[in-house]
């Protein structure tokens, strides 16, 4: 495990990009490591053939721990392991949500389905074919075992025939741009984002899809599901989040306080002012909540900073991390820098720009580094309350639910108001519930006067 930063003591292996028997050269990417801040590709230090892989994906090891043996010796003429890779690994499966549900109902593992739709997209019929094949073969389902066995006959994937080495970014980009990784000619080198972009630029996109089969009228577009190496079917982002959240739950004594905030003033004000704004500059309620949060943090510095070496270090500025789910199922929380010093339209611009780039995999290193507080807004997912887990070494997190209309008493009269549930998770080593309560009340007050935001 190499040291990928001065403060790095250990790292979590997210995935291997090579297999035993692969020939590697100095500088080739061989693994992806999560440093708690970012997923970073690790390169081989020498030429040779990959021997034993000593560390399993998902494992956290100290800096300096050997991760794999690279045997320098005569390299075999070809890298045989690449031809016998586990089917379906490392190739993103693209299937629409209805097809995913259909596959789940039939117990079909999407990673072993060959998509016949455009760009290899999995169609309902492809799932059915695999299900039929599995049923006619009297053998147990291949997905029953922890490590996939031979796939059913009709499900033999062309994709499994030669495993491509693909950088995680390139894989996300390919899924996003609808580029078929297997159709790329890159010789022996890894598939990089450049190759994917070049391919996407060269391919005419968005041409009409082939005529749909009649029974798929509910089939809809996809959130590309990234399927991965065994044993889990989760992307590397999952492992990174898992490692960080485990650490948080292990080390951080959380407290949670919550309040319901009346958003009538904000929504009325936004509706009025948005009418004057071009569509591209319209402000969504989330931006107002972010802006109010930044201002409240500015006045509650004990929630804005880091727990380092057994002590709290307040941060100089308010860098608001915003949890963004990327379409492959990963989660990133890039920062809006100096959010307390930006106007509401500026915060909205920053938010829009950041989410777009997060989903294109084009965040900058600076944005990924060191948010001082995180906001996680799951309102678009339809939940009313989010009791979040703090991102260490930060010391607090705000969960934002959906804006819902509720009966609400104002001045002794009952009315229907748009309200939102705000939940603060705080680190008890730094603050108490009283601080969290003060912070939430500040946010509430600020949201009652949106023109001041």
């Amino acid at each position, binding site marked *: 495990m190499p040291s990928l930063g001065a403060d790095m003591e250990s790292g979590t292996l997210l995935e291997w990009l090579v297999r035993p028997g692969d020939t590697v050269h100095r500088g080739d990417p061989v693994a992806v490591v999560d440093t708690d801040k970012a997923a970073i590709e690790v390169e081989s230090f020498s030429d040779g053939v990959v021997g034993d892989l000593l560390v399993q994906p998902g494992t956290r090891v100290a800096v300096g721990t050997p991760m794999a043996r690279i045997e320098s010796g005569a390299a075999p003429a070809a890298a045989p392991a690449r031809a016998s890779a586990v089917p379906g690994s490392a190739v993103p499966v693209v299937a629409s949500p209805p097809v995913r549900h259909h596959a789940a109902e039939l117990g079909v593992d999407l990673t072993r389905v060959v998509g016949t739709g455009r760009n290899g997209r999995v169609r309902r019929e492809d799932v059915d074919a695999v299900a039929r094949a599995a049923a006619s073969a009297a053998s147990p389902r291949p997905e029953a075992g922890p490590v996939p066995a031979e796939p059913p006959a009709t499900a033999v994937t062309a994709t499994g025939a030669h495993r491509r080495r693909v950088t995680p970014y390139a894989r996300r980009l390919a899924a996003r741009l609808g580029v078929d990784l297997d159709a790329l000619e890159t010789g022996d080198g890894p598939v990089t984002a450049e190759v994917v972009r070049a391919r996407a630029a060269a391919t005419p996109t968005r041409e009409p899809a082939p005529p749909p089969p009649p029974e798929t009228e509910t089939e809809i*577009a996809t959130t590309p599901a990234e399927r991965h190496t065994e044993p889990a079917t989760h992307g590397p982002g999952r492992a990174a989040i898992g490692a960080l959240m485990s650490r948080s739950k292990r080390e951080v004594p959380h407290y949670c306080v919550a309040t319901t905030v009346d958003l009538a003033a904000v929504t009325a004000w936004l509706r009025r002012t*948005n009418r004057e704004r071009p569509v591209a500059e319209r402000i969504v309620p989330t931006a107002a909540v972010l802006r109010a949060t930044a201002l409240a943090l500015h006045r509650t510095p004990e929630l804005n900073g880091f727990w380092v070496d057994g002590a709290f270090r307040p941060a100089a500025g308010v860098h608001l991390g915003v949890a963004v789910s990327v379409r492959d199922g990963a989660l990133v929380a890039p920062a809006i820098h100096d959010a307390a010093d930006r106007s509401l339209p500026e915060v909205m611009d920053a938010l829009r720009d950041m989410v777009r780039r997060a989903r294109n995999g084009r965040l900058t290193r600076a944005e990924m580094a060191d948010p001082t507080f995180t906001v996680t807004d799951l309102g678009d997912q339809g939940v009313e309350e989010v009791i979040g887990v703090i991102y260490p070494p930060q010391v607090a997190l705000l969960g934002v639910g959906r804006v819902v209309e509720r009966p609400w008493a104002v001045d002794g009269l009952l009315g229907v108001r748009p309200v939102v549930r705000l939940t603060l998770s705080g680190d008890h080593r730094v603050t108490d519930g009283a601080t969290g309560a003060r912070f939430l009340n500040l946010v509430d007050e600020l949201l009652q006067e949106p023109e001041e935001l």
Partner: protein
Amino acid sequence: VSVTLSETRELVKTSLAHIVPADEVDTLSDDADLRRAFELDSLDYVEFVERLSQAAGVRIDEEDYPELRTITTLTAFLAGRR
């Protein structure tokens, strides 16, 4: 001015293409909820509205959002605006 369902469908497809893989618009039912079907969050939705407004050449205010819910309701909305 009449607007056909298939015209609306094309508009939706063009507008969504920059946000999500939009080919499946072709196979979407006329009455499917667009926002839910394509899993659009609020920021995606603003972008969709922006592109739709440009492509259709009509102004779309926030009050109009409920009328954009499906291909059918959107077709009626566009017919009323042109």
